[in-house]
């Protein structure tokens, strides 16, 4: 398909499923390489020079970035063609891509339009499932925003080790948790894109200076003798029975290829990861969102009153309810008198959780569990959830995200025609092992 045809299809799909916040009218190809002929969609929160980038929020209306994120630079150099910015929960604040910016669109699940794509990278997952042209999507995860929607839409999604892929150009949700990753239909494409976007970037101080393996080679390796830990707590209460059965079958497939699977317990993570994650994420988010005040870019209003009145007016008008909720909770958690009890305590717990994982990875090559405890819920069901029930959806994904561990979701079956995903979690920088195992996991 040529560029014109690709854009035509993207627009048709967008009309039906609302996957995009912005489609590039006349996409350009800059370089030549392993991505030549591949269309790339980009989660709205990753800046693309010259293309309106809003992180899914109305407060960044008409913001045209002056620079490319490092991942975009790398993609362009390899011949990838950027076709548009995908729909997401504003700033990544959500698990269903329903917390979109005021007046913006909620993407619809490719298998059932009454259901969610998952979030926050919902648009990325949807277009990845539906596109018939060569396509890879750049997504981002803070607490599960890649694997959740990838699982709900039946595609492969990888969230790499924290620091593996440069965050330069990513509009921050929670800087100590944000990771740029990718989604594709096949694990081969994931191996390809990861090889390109991973690596050290001097513009991101938290970027890791470690060599990048050839993942396309990794996926070919057999898994005989590899040790996989089945996370005990993830198969307990609250897990949909059919999802559970499906993931157990997936585990059998791995065993049949010579992997050794054993049950492993992560008591601390299971008990505290969710609270710990939300405290840190919201505390950081509340500082990151401070810059959006209608002064230098994005939405603006008539300048009236004191600067405090003006900033408050713009922020009240253009942030959606979930953004406000997280700003308020996050600010509270770092106020004098509460910092010790919430923010600082959460930081300490996080260290303990990382230690728990590190101990487990001394024994196992990877951990396995369902990506999400349920299949994609209907919008009518989501409406009934309280914020707390909403946050509970991330119970399985926040652990690896909090610990900065790479994780991948592979479509492993269906329930009522809706996709189910199985998640593999690896030690820091063990993306190669995840792809090696993941390649053997797909249902035949």
């Amino acid at each position: 398909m040529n560029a014109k045809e690709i854009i035509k299809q993207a627009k048709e799909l967008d009309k039906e499923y609302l996957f995009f916040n912005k489609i590039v009218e006349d996409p350009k190809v800059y370089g030549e390489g392993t991505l030549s002929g591949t269309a790339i969609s980009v989660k709205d929160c990753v800046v693309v020079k010259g293309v309106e980038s809003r992180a899914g929020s109305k407060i960044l209306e008409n913001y045209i970035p002056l620079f490319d994120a490092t991942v975009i630079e790398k993609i362009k150099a390899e011949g990838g063609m950027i076709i548009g910015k995908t729909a997401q929960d504003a700033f990544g604040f959500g698990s269903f891509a329903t917390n979109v910016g005021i007046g913006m669109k909620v993407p619809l699940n490719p298998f059932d339009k009454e259901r969610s794509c998952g979030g926050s990278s919902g648009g990325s997952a949807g277009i990845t499932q539906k596109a018939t042209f060569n396509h890879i999507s750049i997504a981002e995860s803070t607490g599960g925003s890649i694997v959740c929607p990838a699982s709900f839409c039946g595609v492969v999604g990888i969230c790499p080790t924290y620091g593996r892929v440069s965050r330069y150009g990513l509009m921050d949700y929670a800087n100590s948790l944000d990771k740029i990753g990718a989604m594709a239909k096949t694990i081969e494409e994931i191996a390809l894109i990861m090889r390109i976007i991973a690596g050290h970037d001097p513009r991101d101080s938290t970027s890791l200076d470690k060599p990048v393996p050839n993942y396309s080679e990794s996926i070919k390796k057999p898994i005989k003798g590899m040790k996989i830990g089945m996370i005990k707590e993830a198969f307990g209460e609250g897990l949909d029975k059919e999802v559970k059965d499906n993931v157990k079958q997936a585990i059998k497939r791995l065993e049949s290829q010579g992997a050794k699977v054993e049950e492993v317990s992560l008591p601390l993570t299971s008990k505290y990861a969710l609270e710990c994650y939300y405290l840190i994420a919201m505390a950081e988010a509340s500082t990151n969102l401070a810059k959006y005040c209608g002064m230098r870019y994005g939405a603006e209003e008539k300048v009236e009153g004191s600067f405090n009145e003006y900033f408050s007016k713009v922020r009240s008008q253009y942030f959606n309810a979930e953004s406000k909720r997280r700003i308020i909770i996050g600010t509270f958690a770092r106020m004098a008198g509460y910092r010790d009890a919430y923010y600082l305590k959460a930081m300490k717990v996080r260290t303990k959780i990382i230690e728990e994982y590190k101990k487990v990875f001394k024994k196992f090559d990877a951990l396995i569990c369902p990506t999400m405890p349920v299949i994609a819920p209907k919008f009518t069901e989501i409406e009934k959830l309280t914020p707390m029930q909403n946050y509970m959806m991330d119970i399985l994904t926040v652990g690896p995200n909090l610990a900065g561990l790479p994780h991948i979701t592979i479509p492993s079956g269906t329930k009522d025609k809706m996709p189910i995903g199985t998640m593999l979690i690896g030690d820091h920088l063990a993306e190669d092992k995840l792809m090696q195992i993941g390649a053997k996991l797909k249902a035949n």
Partner: protein
Amino acid sequence: MKFTTPVVIGLEIHIELDTESKMFCGCPRSGDDTPNSRTCPICLGHPGSKPVLNKKAVEYGIKLALATKSKIAKELIFSRKSYFYPDMAKNYQISQYEVPLAEKGKITLPNKKIVNLTRIHLEEDPASLVHPAGMQSSSYVLVDYNRSGDPLAEVVTEPDMTSPEEARDFMRQLITILEYLEIFDINNCIIKADANISIKESGYIRSEIKNITGFKDIEKALNYEIQRQRKEVAEGKTLKMQTRSWDASTGTTHLLRTKETEADYGYIIDPDLVKIDLDKSWIDKIQATMPELAEAKLEKFTKEHGLSEEMAKILSKDKKLALMFEEVAVAVNPDLAAKWIRRELPRVLNYSKKTLEDTGIEAIHLIDLLKLIESKTITEKIGQKIIERLVEKTFDVKAYVEKEGLAAVSDKGIIEKFCKEAIKENPKAVDDIKAGNEKSINFLVGQVMRKSKGKAVPDEVQKILKDLIK
């Protein structure tokens, strides 16, 4: 803390460090002053941009910590200080909170009093606000982000100072240290102080005066504030903790806000910046590059070179002159060297509006010159003329004196001839001298000096004149 003195003063000083680039991006720290010309997505706080630490700024901060004998932290940790203000690109400032770069330093004042430093930390400067019609009456402000992200070192003192004079002396000492370390350039870096001041009569209810620039203004602002606080107390008013601004043009302070509670900045550790080990080997490396400071030089100048306390103080304050003195004083009499470096050199530099570096004058020029004076080969007058020419363009002093025939006239006959002429041409002066007006002899000496084109030795001329007139 229990205070007993009539006045208690503590300072928080912001020092702009003289680095090439800004604290967290590659934009130049100084240069083009066209508003918003030295900016990029990082110092403008654009979404997606990330800070990268300028190590030079850290090195400068460590130098200041070492010079003030502060205890340096093991790790460098930056925090986000959150508050909304139009000059803040991100509405948080990257600063340091829980663990500052250094703590517990000290600076000794000229009166030997020690002022303790609570902490030294690094942070980024906000943008600058421009009030087109003055601070009080502008209906809008303009924001210039050229300053946004400049590296600052903040020095916080204990409330150890007891008078405006001490605060002024503290600032002077601090600036001398900064200049010796070459981490601050008074010509293109800003130094600003916030001063906390309280008086005994009020029970030490303090006010904070913001943004005082320059050490002369510190003294003025604090003196004004003491008077204001005393007047309020005398009128029976109860003072409240408050923040005030200093208006240098009127020499007054103005109420900005009363402080009910401490502001809550909701500090979190900046997750975009990694912790940096301030390991011993790095500190040692910096320590090895530390220059001898003014305090040590002062002691050396009095003890080793035998200069007067006053002369030593003046010379040690200026690093360039102090270094010049040390080189010259090994070759010629230290008092002579001090006199010329302290007086003649600055005089001609001031006159030609040049700095020492502009001229290319080095120790060897002064050594040659002063040796010639010491040996009475040339007169001081000729010496002055030579240094004036050296400021324009340097040359070999010895060769120049020979070539131009500037050596002092030692032929007594010639000087006597000039003296006789002068006596003949100025009968009134001669009468005055005879009438007992000794000062008129200087006038005649001047005439003879002119005739000799400065090459006569004034002491000799005077002696000959006296003999002739007697």
